[in-house]
């Protein structure tokens, strides 16, 4: 008899790898419910970086000595881990950058600025983080292309039925840019369907996966996208490293983004030619130890398993929605738990999010995010200048959601 059991993760055991949870905030154990802004780091990531600095550190690529070879091996091993992580066809399609924002700017500048013009359309969504909105708005403005926004329904899901209408009469759709998972509502977007729609029109499909990579398995080939941007710091990796995946054929055709050392083939007085992928887009000294740290983060996540991560987050979101629904005056936003990552966006009637966050922190040691979450178009849609966001990850415990609920009751009492 075949028995399949979904793997569960043990958050208590995972927490033992994160020394930060020994810290206290206002004398209370830290309840970190702000992982959508940035995740905490396990000791395995920090140790991998320290080990790299202590045993393998030199500048990569050009050194002929053994230490430089070890450093290069560290960087390239990390690149291969990233390749496997997103199921990219080739490691040279992985470009290391500072973060998803830099990756998206790279595409907007190198591809967009050179290929867009009057009569072209760039389509983004109402759900976008500013990182996948502002660069496209700017480049569309510079090239006189039309900038359009696909609206959301009341549950925070994309109105795919309005795709054709949104671009009707606007011209030739050249770029479709969407987040995979919304950083504010947690919505998991139907990227595959958007890719199909984009490709039917000859457009490129750009996917901001910064908020997806920590929570779900990503397969660039089944998603059907042309570019994918990820930040390391939201997925247990260090700050200062992220990556862009792009189809080799597109990357090869594109103009470079940053110019300087390492990205060249031959430099002359009259002209310079560009190096091969990925060097062409990696000018200057790479974030080497950060790449090693990102590789260790990928190992850690694979060990925990994405099925287990998704299940854990779905259970936490379900629990949080139940607990928050019990509190009068608290409104939650977003799609049902099965179609969202570990994020709960909410409003407390009559109380500004900064006051909510302050009271949660001082009373309960609960850290949440208060503000516009870099999603001002979405906040306008909700009719709120700012909202509260609690976000969960592999190390989040249901007890921390209980403390969130207790803190919210206190908020209601203080402002009652």
């Amino acid at each position, binding site marked *: 008899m075949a028995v399949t059991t979904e793997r569960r993760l043990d958050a208590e055991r995972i927490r033992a790898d994160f020394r930060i949870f020994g810290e206290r905030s*206002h004398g209370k154990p830290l309840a970190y419910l702000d992982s959508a802004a940035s995740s905490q780091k396990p000791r395995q990531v920090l140790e991998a970086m320290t080990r790299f600095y202590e045993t393998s550190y030199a500048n990569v690529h050009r050194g002929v000595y053994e230490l430089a070879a070890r450093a290069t091996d560290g960087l390239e091993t990390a690149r291969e881990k990233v390749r496997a992580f997103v199921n990219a066809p080739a490691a040279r399609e992985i470009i290391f950058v500072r973060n998803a924002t830099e990756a998206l700017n790279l595409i907007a500048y190198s591809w967009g600025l050179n290929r867009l013009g009057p009569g072209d359309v760039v389509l983004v969504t109402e759900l976008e983080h500013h990182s996948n909105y502002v660069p496209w708005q700017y480049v569309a403005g510079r090239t006189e292309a039309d900038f359009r926004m696909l609206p959301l329904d009341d549950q925070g899901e994309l109105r795919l039925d309005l795709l054709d209408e949104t671009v009707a009469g606007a011209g030739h759709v050249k770029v479709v840019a969407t987040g995979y998972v919304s950083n504010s509502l947690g919505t998991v977007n139907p990227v595959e369907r958007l890719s199909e729609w984009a490709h039917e029109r000859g457009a490129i499909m750009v996917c901001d996966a910064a908020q997806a990579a920590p929570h779900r398995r990503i397969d660039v080939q089944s998603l059907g996208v042309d570019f994918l941007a990820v930040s390391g710091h939201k997925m247990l990796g260090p700050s200062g490293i992220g990556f862009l995946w792009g189809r080799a054929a597109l990357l090869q055709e594109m103009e470079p983004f940053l110019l300087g050392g390492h990205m060249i083939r031959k430099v002359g007085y009259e002209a310079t030619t560009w190096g091969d992928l990925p060097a062409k887009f990696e000018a200057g000294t790479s974030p080497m130890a950060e790449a090693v740290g990102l590789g260790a983060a990928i190992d850690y996540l694979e060990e925990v398993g994405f099925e287990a991560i998704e299940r854990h987050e779905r259970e936490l979101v379900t629990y949080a929605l139940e607990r928050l629904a019990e509190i009068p005056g608290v409104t939650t936003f977003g799609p049902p738990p099965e179609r969202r990552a570990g994020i709960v966006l909410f409003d407390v009637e009559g*109380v*500004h*999010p*900064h*006051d909510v966050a*302050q*009271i949660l922190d*001082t*009373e309960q040691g609960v850290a949440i995010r*208060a*503000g*516009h979450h870099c999603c001002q178009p979405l906040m306008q849609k909700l009719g709120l*200048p*700012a909202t509260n966001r609690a976000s969960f990850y592999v190390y989040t415990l249901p007890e921390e959601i209980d403390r969130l609920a207790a803190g919210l009751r*206190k908020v209601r009492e*203080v*402002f009652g």
Partner: protein
Amino acid sequence: VSEMEELYREVILDHYKNPRGHGELEEPDAAAEGQNPLCGDEVSIFVAFGGDGETIEDVRFRGRGCAISQASTSMLMEMVKGRTAADVAEMNRDELLEEVGIPLTPIRLKCALLGLGVLKVALHRAKGTPLPEGWDGLDELELT
């Protein structure tokens, strides 16, 4: 007294729930608005001068935002009524912060000082009173 109670003192909550001088003046002698883009606090202030053209006879505000920003602006309305524009332009921020009387982190300090900044811009526009350094040429106060 807990940290929370220190911050959300009864008087702060009272000013937040029952703001003094809340509203607009139809034909103000001076007006300005401003925001703290970081948290979305917004304040607009409207001033009417008395017969001498210098004394603040009436002052109102409209706004939305956190309790600290709205309560401190409400307190400010009570503090400046009856004072001259020149006097208020020179008003030290500590005078307001003493009245607010709560410990503030740098981020929350901006919330507490939003109303005072907007009022100084309004007076500067109407009376040419001096602004704090670096504020000249502001279209709108933005505390960033």
